[in-house]
């Protein structure tokens, strides 16, 4: 297993580096030149010149990249002239909130999707299976922002159970007002459940066709025992890696949810920055999100290695 983990970690490092290269190249391709794009249309010639010198913009690309990467690794993700704060500072305020939203949503979605997918597989092509497929697919096919607005209309305006806006303020404020999180989380969960349940259903079906199921029956195992003691464990093993793959999807859902519910997380930060053409923020967030995805994927793969004895107990 160590071989597997080392290889995956090595790959993750390479991917992270490539991500930084991509982000750097995007930084370089900003309209009007990097300096003007970052400083804004009001910048003076002097400030532009100073910016260019500070950021080595007159030097060849690789040198620029090196300096930029160096500053990033030291925690300097740039400065938002728009918000008058360092990007790192903005992120440190917003990141935990988005992690909370995304984290709760993913966990809830999995808690629903796993039993759902499993039971659908056991009752494949029966009316129940079709019904849930239809239902989850409809939610999956609905634009998240529309779903969010429908939820607001029904639960916040018509029935006034949950607030239409997410709790504002810092992390503590948010946690102390959980009812404000319900609709934002619900939006993301409804849209993501189908994605996960489909995979679990598929994995379960695949396992049901395996020979070891026949062997278990030949031992006299009841269908319940076969399903829960044999098939379930095997079907769930690859689901861990799925969580890693789903991260970008979940972040995108988070962005929309934050925008609609005015939730002060990274997604909303990103959206506002896009509207305002605040490039340092855009790039800083992209970098952090991508890095989080890569690391998340790596952790998911390691989790998989731990769960699957075929990987865990193999030499290298």
């Amino acid at each position: 297993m160590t071989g597997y983990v080392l290889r995956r970690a090595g790959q993750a490092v390479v991917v992270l580096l490539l991500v930084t290269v991509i982000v750097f190249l995007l930084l370089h391709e900003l309209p009007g030149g990097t300096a003007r794009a970052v400083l804004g249309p009001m910048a003076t010639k002097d400030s532009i010149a100073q910016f260019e010198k500070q950021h080595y913009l007159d030097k060849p690309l690789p040198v620029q990249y090196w300096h930029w990467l160096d500053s990033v690794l030291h925690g300097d993700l740039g400065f938002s002239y728009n918000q008058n704060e360092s990007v790192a500072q903005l992120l440190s305020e917003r990141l935990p909130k988005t992690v909370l939203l995304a984290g709760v949503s993913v966990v809830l979605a999995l808690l629903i999707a796993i039993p759902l997918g499993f039971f659908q597989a056991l009752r494949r092509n029966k009316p129940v299976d079709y019904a849930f497929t239809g239902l989850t697919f409809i939610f999956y096919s609905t634009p998240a922002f529309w779903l969010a607005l429908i939820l607001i209309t029904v639960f916040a305006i018509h029935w006034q159970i949950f607030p239409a806006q997410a709790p504002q303020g810092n992390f503590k404020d948010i946690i102390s007002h959980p009812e404000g999180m319900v609709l934002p989380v619900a939006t993301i969960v409804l849209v993501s459940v189908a994605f996960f349940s489909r995979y679990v259903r598929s994995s379960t079906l695949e396992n049901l066709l395996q020979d070891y199921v026949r062997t278990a029956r030949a031992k006299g195992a009841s269908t319940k025992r076969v399903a829960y003691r044999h098939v379930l464990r095997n079907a769930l093993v690859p689901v861990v890696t799925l969580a890693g793959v789903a991260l970008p999807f979940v972040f995108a859902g988070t962005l929309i949810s934050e925008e609609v519910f005015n939730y002060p997380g990274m997604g909303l930060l990103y959206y506002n920055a896009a509207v305002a053409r605040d490039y340092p923020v855009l790039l800083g967030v992209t970098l952090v999100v991508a890095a989080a995805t890569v690391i998340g994927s790596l952790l998911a793969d390691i989790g998989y290695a731990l769960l699957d004895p075929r990987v865990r107990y193999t030499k290298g």
Partner: protein
Amino acid sequence: MTGEQAPVLEVEELQVDIALRRSTVHAVDGVSFSIGPGETVGLVGESGCGKTTIGLALMQLLPVGGSIVGGAIRLEGRDVAALPEDEVRKLRGDRIGIVFQDPLTSLNPTMTIGAQVAEPLVIHRGASMRVARGRAAELLELVGLPSPTKQLDRFPHQLSGGMRQRVSLATALACEPALLVADEPTTALDVTTQDQILELLARLRAEIGMAVLLITHDLGVVAGQADRVLVMYAGKLVEAGTTNRIFYETRHRYTEALLRSIPRMTTSREEALYSIPGQPPDLSRPPRGCRFAARCAYSTEECLAEVPPFVGPPEHVHACVHPVEQATAVGSQSQVAP
């Protein structure tokens, strides 16, 4: 042999159909045989003849679309074919054990060896996993696995093919069944391992004395292990008798052809290998008469008219209109390669 003691297994005119998308295959069409206590019976035939179907039918483990449409299967006197699912389940793994062909895919990859071998005991004897695992270690030792206690916590992929097959055997024997069904137990293994497993089977038979149904296409396996042989073709039995008689006094033309197609040490290099010309019949529309007639060099009108009846003494029957005459039996002329 059979006789005084009640047979462990009695199959009477068994008929199994398999419903496919567009047709129904009559996989087993009126097969009868019995196995006495301590007997090893070999069931041989080529792929598609229905032998595995019989093995699965014994435990009511037929795949979707398969069903027993006629006949009886009496295991220790009880008609398994007529029992409801939960009754059959109690017999599976307890009174009848089965070893399948592919040892790797037959074992659960994420379950320890110990848990898998112990499982029949947990299911049928109500043993706790801890106690059952202790017994599992004994079973693993019985089947010749080195360091049995260590193996309990390992996983299937960590074992070699031969070791896995031993594990499968141990699992099948856990509850000391009256009948062991071995479906192509050595086909997926290399030759040396095959020998080891067969030796193990012989040893177990001697030590435990259970009845064995050995299903295989390999006549060599049968020659060394079985007391009696049943030859099957296209869903029907064509010849049945003691191993010696089948090999040295072959009667049915199909058996003769099978024996002839085994490569021999004595065959000269220039001689082409014999293979039976033609294909087995389509079992969704089986022919009226003898099913081998289309490929048989000796067939006549009589063969095609209706299914030949079984003739011959009880210890050696065959269903052939133009059987091999005694003196020209293939087996008596040259050595059969083991």
